């Protein structure tokens, strides 16, 4: 089976990212260190195939985020992400 057919998207990583960040991260905007493009995490391609999440840039396919759950540790490699921009809601006066 082709890898392309099996790939998911950032929605599949939502659970483990929620564990890590204590908020939904699928609408957070990630800027690719490789090519500079910016997309919501939910839109990125996930090649994790059940072993955690490997989120790739839609434009240049560089890996933005690698997240793996190993026993009592969640290992996050965000070296491919230049900026992660997370909306935290509007301020009420």
């Amino acid at each position: 089976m082709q890898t392309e057919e099996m790939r998911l998207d950032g929605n599949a990583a939502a659970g483990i990212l929620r564990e890590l960040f204590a908020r939904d991260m699928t609408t957070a905007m990630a800027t690719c260190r490789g090519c500079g493009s910016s997309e919501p995490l939910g839109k990125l391609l996930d090649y994790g195939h059940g072993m955690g999440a490997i989120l790739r840039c839609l434009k240049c396919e560089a890996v933005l985020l690698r997240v793996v759950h190993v026993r009592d540790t969640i290992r996050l490699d965000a070296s491919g992400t230049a900026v992660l921009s997370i909306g935290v809601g509007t301020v009420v006066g």
Partner: protein
Amino acid sequence: MSSATKATPEVTSARSTPVRLEWRVAKVKAVRDETRHVRTLVLDVPEWPGHRPGQHVDVRLVAEDGYQAQRSYSIASPPEVPSVELTIERLDDGEVSPYLCDMLAPGAGLEVRGPIGGYFVWDVSLGGPLLLVAGGSGIVPLMAMLRHYAAADAASRATVPARLLYSARSADDVIYRDELARLATAAEIDVRFTLTRGAPPQWSGYRRRIDRAMLAEVGWPPPTGAQSYVCGPTPLVESVANILVELGHDPSHVRTERFGPTG
């Protein structure tokens, strides 16, 4: 045992402290067979905080030897009902779905965690026009959106015309077939089907895989600023999303959820 207390749906408020996700033991209240391969579990989830249409839950099975299997399932029910409904396609070679479809009877417990997600969600406040495109079991999260839509008042629905294009293998594989027919009339949802592996005689819907010509006919004209949601097998989702963008839709208004290889 009390049934799920319905709290206010989770809303991002000013500087509120986000809540950690907890595993909860849900109780199966009822099961409902949708098609030959598809079953809905109606769950009571203790202290369920509510959810938004399109979100999913994680389900965890633990064997006696400690082996754990975890899968994600879209929530089929709208936030307006207290139970959490999961519609599950039984994959013959699956590790989890055969257990969920064959072994869980009312009264059984099931570990769930959720609601999860925020990108692939829609509710009436987000407006429209709304285009939902489903392939196979991809109909599940879109059904939560449609059920939510149908529960909204007529004035809200009047400002958000809604269309569904649902691709299934055969008429017998169409999940929620009767309910969709009812919603088409009662909530004025424009429901269209395409069957890819054979149609019954006198079938008035489409009879092929979703393609550009079909989306040009069914989709809202791009200048209307439509919100589009596409869910199902990865190849279908990518093809449809690419075509919608080619047809002129704003890519940020085309949201996708891939379910993986064709089942």
